Each structure stands twice: as C-alpha cells, then as structure tokens.
C-alpha cells in the first residue's frame, strides 16, 4: 500500500492506483472528459490536472500513479483557471447548439460550461465544419461536437476489439472517422455512443424522442440472449425511447446492437392489445373481452380434460417469460390441468 496526502487528507491505496482513483475514493470531484475507468488512461482532455508538491507543472491525475509521500492538491486558484481555460478552448470550437442537442441535460461538456460559468468566450475563432451525414442506421455522428477525447476510439479497440474508427489528420483538423472517412460499417454495438461525453455520438433510434427532464429510468434486464446484461430503459410518456446500461453491472455497461438499439418492438403499433378469438372454424381471429376469452379457454380445457384426460393437454412456456410466470405456468398445468406435459424452448 502507498500512503499519500490529497487535499490535506491522508489515504492509503494499492500500488498502481492513479491519483484520480485515489481522489475519487475520497469523494473528491476532479473534472474529466476523457477518462473512463474501463479504458486505459489517456490524458487527452487535460481537465483532471492536479498539483503535486515539488513538481513545477500540474500533472493529469488520470495518468499519474500514486507514489509514497505524494502531496496532491486538487483545487486551487491556478487549477481552476487552467481548467476553465481548457473548457473555454473546447467551447470555442463547439456548435454550442444545446437548444436542439439530443444530449442537453446529459452532456459532460454542458455540465462543465455551467459550473465554470462560461457564457462568453475569450477565444472565439474558427470552428471545424463537418457536414457529412453518416448513413448507418444506428449511430448519428455529429463530429463538430466531438472534443477528441477518443473514448469512442478506445472503447472500439480496447473493449470491442473491432477498431472501426480511429483518429485521422493533425492538430485542429484531427478527427475521429472510419477508414477513408466512409460511412460507419461495424458491429454497431454502440459502445462508442455510450461513452461519448458530448452530443457527437447519439442513437438515431432515439433522436428527438424526448429530453432528459422527461425521462423516467427503469433498471431491468435485457430480453435477448442469455448474457443477462443489465439495461436501463429510458421512457417518456409510456414509451421506451432508449436503452442504456450502467458501468457497475455484470456487463460493465457494454451492450450489443440488439440490446442497445433493438427495443423498438415494445412500442410497435402491431402489438396485441386485446384478446382474439376464432369464433368459427377457419374463421378470422376477432377481438374479444378477457371474460369471453378466458371463459372459452376454461370451458374447452375442462371439456378436453373430461373427455380425453389431463394428458391430452400440453403447455409450452417461454424462455422470454419471467421466472415467476414460468413458475405459475407449470403450477397451473400440474395443479389445475393435472399433467406434466409442460416444456419450454431450451432445446431450440
């Protein structure tokens, strides 16, 4: 363990811990735009700078490993000034169109601009102009809003091991793009969207579906494969508009294209809304009341059971239903119908 002092408080952390992690253990709020605990340290945004006693320049907390006896200062007039300058630089090359931005209210850059009170900007100058629309159906890429934190590049390489995007060009013209600036063609896991701290990457599926203030968040589990990824449903006025995932879950916040983008079915107009009954043989399925439908099922099940015995009935349950529903289903068949003719789709 390494002993150090941060803002006058003593702390002991394992070797290899970064100053940022150590500070966060003390609940100190050091701003960052490019750091993600799931990715390798990058040190690009320069917001997490802190002062080390005996070191003339500030260092980035995210890349600096702790050392014994280190004395760290995370807040000072000079640090405030430097961080403010960095944010001001970023905003001087940003559309600042929060009024129509999907990420308004959920944007780290906006948040920082707010806390540092940056309304005017000393540095107004040329802005990057990228008007290319990426034709892929999942991810909206507005590269003018990109702050080059490279989280998307890193998650695509380090986590997804796909490497569909990288940085191109130099200096002020540096940008993130697929090879030869073509349209994105990848696994569309949307990990890049999940880590983007600004409105540069958003889901086309949830574009203009609802603003942050209206969103209700529900923690639940993905309905697709057996991984059991934890997802957060964003709903607005009884519609699911987006899926995201928290970092501290079994899936570490990562999802696949189905889990992240494949939720539209929930809101589809062709969802079944009432029971349907076929009132005559080969006739059409027609809407019915629950009373009528359940009455019909009840009488037909009773009749067949009476005539042919309980084993003339069977039930197929679903792996997409909950444990409780499956439990109830088999209990119903075993107690009410009186048969073990129950199975589910595990074999397919």
């Amino acid at each position, binding site marked *: 363990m390494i002993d150090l002092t941060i803002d006058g408080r003593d702390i002991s952390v394992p070797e290899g811990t970064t100053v940022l992690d150590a500070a966060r253990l003390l609940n100190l709020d050091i701003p960052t735009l490019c750091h993600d605990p799931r990715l390798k340290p990058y040190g690009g945004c320069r917001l997490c700078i802190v002062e080390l006693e005996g070191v003339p320049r500030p260092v980035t907390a995210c890349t600096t490993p702790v050392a014994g006896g280190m004395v760290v200062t995370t807040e000072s007039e000079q640090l405030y000034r430097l961080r403010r300058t960095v944010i001001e630089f970023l905003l001087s090359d940003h559309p600042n169109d929060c009024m129509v931005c999907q990420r308004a209210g959920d944007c780290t850059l906006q948040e920082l601009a707010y806390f540092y009170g940056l309304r005017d900007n000393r540095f107004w100058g040329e802005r990057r102009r990228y008007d290319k629309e990426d034709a892929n159906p999942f991810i909206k890429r507005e590269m003018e809003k990109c702050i080059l934190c490279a989280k998307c590049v890193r998650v695509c390489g380090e986590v997804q091991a796909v490497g569909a995007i990288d940085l191109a060009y130099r200096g002020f013209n540096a940008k993130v793009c697929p090879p030869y600036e073509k349209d994105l063609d990848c696994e*569309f896991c949307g990990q890049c969207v999940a880590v983007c701290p600004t409105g540069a990457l958003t889901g086309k599926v949830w574009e203009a579906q609802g603003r942050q203030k209206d969103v209700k968040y529900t923690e639940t589990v993905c309905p697709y494969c057996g991984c059991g990824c934890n997802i957060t449903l964003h709903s607005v006025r009884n519609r699911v508009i987006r899926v995201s995932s928290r970092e501290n879950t079994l899936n570490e916040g990562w999802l*696949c294209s189905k889990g992240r983008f494949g939720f539209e079915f929930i809101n589809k107009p062709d969802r079944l809304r009432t029971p349907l009954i076929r009132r005559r043989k080969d006739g059409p399925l027609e809407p019915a009341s629950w009373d009528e439908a359940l009455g019909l099922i009840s009488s037909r099940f009773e009749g067949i059971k009476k005539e042919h015995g309980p084993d003339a009935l069977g039930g197929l349950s679903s792996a997409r239903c909950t444990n409780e529903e499956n439990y109830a289903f088999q209990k119903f068949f075993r107690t009410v119908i009186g048969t073990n003719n129950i199975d589910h789709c595990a074999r397919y």
Partner: protein
Amino acid sequence: MAGLATVFGSGAMTNSIAEVENNDALFVIGSNTTENHPIVALRMKKAAEKGAKIIVADPRKIPLVKFAALWLRQRPGTDVALLNSMMHVILEEGLEDKRFIEERTEGFEAFKAAVKEFTPEYAEKITGVPKEDIIKAAKIYASAGKAGIYYTMGITQHSMGTNNVYSVANLAMLTGNLGRESTGVNPLRGQNNVQGSSDMACAPTVLPGYQKVTDEAARAKFESVWGRPVPSKVGMTATEMTGAMIDGSLKALYIMGENPLLSDPNMGHTTNALKNLEFLVVQDIFLTETAELADVVLPAASFAEKDGTFTNTERRVQRVRKAIDAPGEALDDLEIICRLSLRMGFDLCLNTPEDAFLEAGSLWPALAGMTYRRINDNGLHWPCPTSDHPGTPYLFHGTFPKGKATFTPVPFVKSKELPDDEYPFVLTTGRVLFQYHTGTMTRRSKALEAVAPEAFVEINTADAENLGISTSDMVSVTSRRGEIKLKAKVADKVGPGVVFIPFHYKEAAANILTNDALDPVCKIPEAKVCAVRLQKA
C-alpha cells in the same frame, strides 16, 4: 441440460461470466460467441489480451477465430471424435489431473478404455482436423492452469447432443478444470431466461429446482404447499408433443410466448401438428406465425411492462422491472395465468411476482436465500440457500451435488442424416449478430433490419465455383423435408461441403429444411446437421 445433470448432478454454467477474462485457456466449441453472446465474447477478447490462449472448434470461421491461438475446423457432427481424441492425447502425454480424477470422479477406467481408439490419426479422418492441431489443442487446454470450456447449441442441437455434452464434461474432469475459479463447463444460454424457465421446471420430468416428478417425497413437498395433487407420470417434451399432435393424442396446447412454427426443425411437420389440434391457445406480444393458427390469442405484456426476475446464463437471478404500461388491454403473463386458473376454480395464490418468487424459493433450497430486496442491485448466483449466503459464482467447490462426478464413455455416432449423392451438402444453422431467434423482436427494429434484412446461405468459394454461384445469386436449397430460396453469400467462412443458413427469417425459414430427429436422452432436435442440395435458382 440432462447431460450435465447426469454427470455432475446439476446442469448449468459452472462458472460466472466475470471469471472468463481470467482464464489461461478457453476452449470454445460450437459457440459463435461474438455474434450470439457478444458480452461474454468481450470477456473472451479481454482474456486473450491478458495472454490467455483461445482454442476455437467450429466448422465456420467465426469472428472469434481472429482472437484464437488455434482454430479447429471439425466437420459438423464430429465433435465427439475431436473431443475423444484430445482426451486420448492428454492421457498419452500424461497431462491428466490424477489427483482430481482419483478424489472427485468415478468411472475413469471405462472412459479411458473408450478413448483408446481415438488416436489423432483416426480422429483426423473423421473430423477433418489435422492431427497436429488436435495434439496442439489438447496440450494448450490441458497444460493451462485455469481452462474453461464454452459451448452452445453447436454442441447440443444434434441427435447425439447428450453424448457431446458428456464428452465436454469428460474433458473438464480429466484435467481437473472444475470447482475452481475461471474453469468449468459452461453452456452459454441462448435466451434471456432459458436458465430460469428450466429452474422453474417448465419441463416434463421435473418440478422446480430439478426435483423429479417421479420422486414421491418431492411431490409430497410440493403438494403440501400447493394444496393439490401433483401428477407422477412423466410428461411429454415439446418435440414429443409435436408427434402427439400429429397422432391426435394431444388435443389442446397452451403456448406462452413461443413461436415454435419458426424455431422448430422441420417446419412443415410443425405446421401440420399445430393444425391438427382441437384447441390452441397462444399468448404473446405479437400475432406470431404460430398465433395465427390459434383459436384464442391472449395479449401479453413485454419485458418492459412487468416485474419479476430473469436468471441469466451464469445462474444470476436478476430483477426485471416495469417501465411502462402494457398496450391496450394486454396483461402480464402471471396475471393471465392466475386469472385463468381462478376461472377454472383454483386460486394459484400468486398475487404478485414476489409471491411467486418466494413460493419457488420455499420449495427449492438453491433459491431459498433470495428476496427481491437482496437481488435488487446486481442479482445473486444460485445456489443461495440462506438469507446471508453470498450466492455461488462458481459451482462444485470441494464436491459435486451427487458426490463424485461420473466419466461417461462416449462412442462416436454419426449424425442421423449425412450428405449423399442426392443431398451432397451439410447444412448447419445459427444466428447472426443483428437478429434474434425468430425475429419477432429484432425484425421490428428498423435499424437492425436495415443491416441484416434477409436470409442468406453461406457457401464455400470452391463449392460456389463448381455450382456456378456467386454472391447475391438466388439459390434454392432443398432437403428431404422442403425447399427454400435465398441469396448466396460466397466466402470461406464455411468449409467445403458445408453450408450455413441463419434461422431468423420466415421468408426463407431454415427450419423448413432441418431434421427433427431427436437426441434419445433429452429430445433435442438435430437442427445443426442435415443434408441438402443447392441449385442456382
């Protein structure tokens, strides 16, 4: 899961997903993990980055091959020969875990005798995998400190699927890769709650918690809680039910949330069976192909509209929570079942999901320690027998539920239907990344549908050349059971003599072609191997 239950006394993934990244070696057989279990695959990629060696055994050059130290392209349906041969090599090289075999297993000698004939040379002839690679794979797996096996339907959906599972289990036992972190035998479950619906005993032979219906004491326990007699006669599996529908002995079927018409092999057969029923009830969120045949269709709530729990592939029981109201008059399945039961004169007494959860826990010790409050944040892995038990990320530490694990001598049995002059290609089926199962959910997503809009048949370059087929040509694929037309995708993802079709698409449903021959033990159909012929359409 009957296979693993026979060997260990419990049939589920032995280890948890988080452990994957700390494996020293991973043997991935019959699992296209990156496309079917993308998030488990992330851990595999991470393991590879940390230095683990991945061995992929798959007839197709699946994306995971890129991260593999070794790729074995076995012919479809020859897994047992491959596995037996690897074990033959391990024994030859003396790489087996003698202490583990001695202390924790039984039946070793018979097993040892059974793999004797599977020399790498012999296995090469059957599997098509070069003998050097078999030896290399055996050495990588057996000499790793912590090695895990991962498989899915590529192992189980065969007429000898149970044998395949026995073989996989033998391999882990032989090397002592059980009961420790980052090891194990890990069937990756293809659907969100397959594990849970198995646990909850929507199965003809067992009551919740894998307690046999033939076990009188178990029945008595359930009867005392349920207040009704529990039938002792083993019921029919789904595949057997299809037969019983055809022969008329099964008159009524109640399907909750399934679309067997598209997901089951031999679609023509399934359609006839369903049509032959006197009374069919389908409860679903959409009017599926199966629902269209029903007499009564009941509108159900989707996962976003209800509370409850799912149990994922690693036995983690997690909360499902209601985000929005179900559309129209749709109700959640639990409520529908309870209402129907009441209508038929019996109160199931499951008024809330948690009532059902706690009742299941009172009858199955592995769940007894869980409550909604305890699983609120990140869920718990069963078994979790008491309210202070932390859950069990990996099974079999120290002992197996049945005491010692049993080696099973496994002979090599050919698939039921192999290529011949008339049907010269082996068809294997599976999923693609952007679609899921029968497409009920994914095909309603504009974006997913945009990138994976239609079915295709993957054909090896050499075969395609011989047949004069190029990518995007329409091809008719015919088996003894039917014919479909779809676009060709020519590439070397499949080997010569093999074709692959994803089964999501009703327009060109792969299961029109597949064989419904069953595995004799667990009645799983042979969806992964059948014989077809190809023709440019």
